[in-house]
């Protein structure tokens, strides 16, 4: 209750505590999301090649981006989305208030749909992983026949281990990706506080930098003025001397002229 009162009072201590707490959440969520991104990369590697068998390996979206690569990424993102909906309908995460407010009669079928779709995608990925293994084996056999070398005799059980491993990975990784929903929620909720704190920090940093720059410019201008005074004093002295000598000669010349006029009148 005391803490709540302090929060209401917006005391600096509580504000600091809350920011630190959000920062910790943010760091942990970022770490978990980074790990999940690694999993997504492996997942992508597993399905990119066999997807090219479906959408073609020669189509490009940009100069370097193949359609099959994008298709593989779309599948991975779709799996993550299904996972998000699954956790949302299970009320583990609370990213979509509309799903949270759904009555159980609607929420449960939605949950099962998300689960079935996710399982189907995982099954497809396992099949794609098997296909990838077969395609790599086919390519290797072709290259061996082109190189006219004898194919390596491999133990059948040993040879199957990577295949089974790939299939298992293909099946498990989509479910693993589904769990990203939890750190994603933490990430989004803490990102607001961390983002705000970062903005405050940025504004303070900017203010400091601008103040520093302003002071530097002000002091620099006074130094420049002083330097100018030092430099300009010599030409000014010369000017004064020159003007002084000119003034004397012109005044003496004027006096001589007056004498002449007086003589002419007389």
């Amino acid at each position: 209750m005391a803490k709540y009162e302090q929060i209401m009072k917006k005391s600096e201590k509580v504000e600091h505590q809350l920011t630190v707490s959000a920062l910790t959440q943010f760091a942990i969520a970022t770490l978990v999301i980074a790990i999940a991104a690694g999993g997504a990369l492996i997942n992508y590697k597993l399905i990119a090649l066999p997807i090219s068998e479906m959408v073609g390996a020669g189509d490009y979206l940009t100069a370097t981006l193949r359609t099959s690569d994008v298709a593989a990424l779309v599948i991975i993102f779709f799996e993550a989305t299904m996972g998000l909906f699954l956790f949302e309908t299970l009320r583990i995460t609370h990213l979509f208030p509309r799903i949270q407010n759904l009555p159980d009669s609607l929420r449960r079928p939605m949950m099962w749909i998300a689960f079935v779709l996710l399982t189907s995608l995982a099954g497809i990925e396992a099949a794609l992983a098997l296909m990838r293994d077969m395609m790599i084996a086919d390519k290797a056999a072709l290259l061996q026949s082109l190189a006219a070398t004898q194919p390596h005799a491999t133990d059948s059980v040993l040879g199957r281990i990577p295949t089974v491993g790939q299939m298992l990975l293909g099946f498990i990784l989509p479910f693993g990706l589904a769990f990203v929903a939890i750190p994603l929620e933490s990430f989004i909720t803490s990102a607001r506080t961390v983002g705000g704190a970062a903005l405050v920090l940025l504004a303070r940093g900017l203010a400091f930098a601008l103040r520093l720059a302003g002071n530097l410019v002000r002091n620099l201008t006074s130094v420049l003025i002083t330097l100018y005074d030092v430099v300009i004093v010599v030409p000014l002295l010369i000017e004064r001397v020159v003007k002084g000598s000119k003034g004397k000669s012109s005044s003496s010349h004027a006096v001589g002229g007056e004498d002449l006029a007086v003589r002419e009148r007389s």
Partner: protein
Amino acid sequence: MNKRSFLVSLPAIGLAPWFAGCTDQRSHAQAVYMLVDTSGTYAQEVDKAQLIVNYLLGSLNPGDSFAVARVRSRSFSEKDIIAKATFDNRPSQANVQKRAFREQVEAFTRSARGSAYTDITGGLIQGAMFLNETGAGKKTILIFSDMQEELDKATVRDFPIDLKSIRVVAVNVVKLKTDNIDPRRYTSRLDEWQKRVEAAGASEWRVINDIEHLDRLLKS
């Protein structure tokens, strides 16, 4: 695709609707036309041609085109094309095509007979027509020959040819006995071909005598 490409492609997902209307229409496919000289003493080198064909089959991707044709007394003919294929976009089907292609070329190398004359120009014209038809982005003619053209009196080839945007690579240009007597003949022969090919609008002219250097050529 490496990690960098993976990260680069992430924003592409967000721009999917834009991509739908603006996909890259340029052809990324590669087309290679290989001329194999079967004239005179060079017919002995045909086994090496098989190695190059095998190498190319291993390097070309789905969607690429490949043709192998022989150089005979008159080579401007579809009949001189030993094997040709535009590989399927599906990698598994492309592999099946490659196996069939290799068998066709193997059958040719077993039964290849030497011809009296060497019509390289006719083969170049035929190759350029094939490559232009494929619509590939990168077009290459490989000439597996000693580059010594010999035509009979009736064959006319002394006119300008069109090799616009085509790379021409002379492979395994062996030295003739006369070249050994005067090496300037070899270099002048190659220089003449370079001038002729460049005058025809070819994008590049190269001579590769070490087959291992073909790797760099296909990647560039």
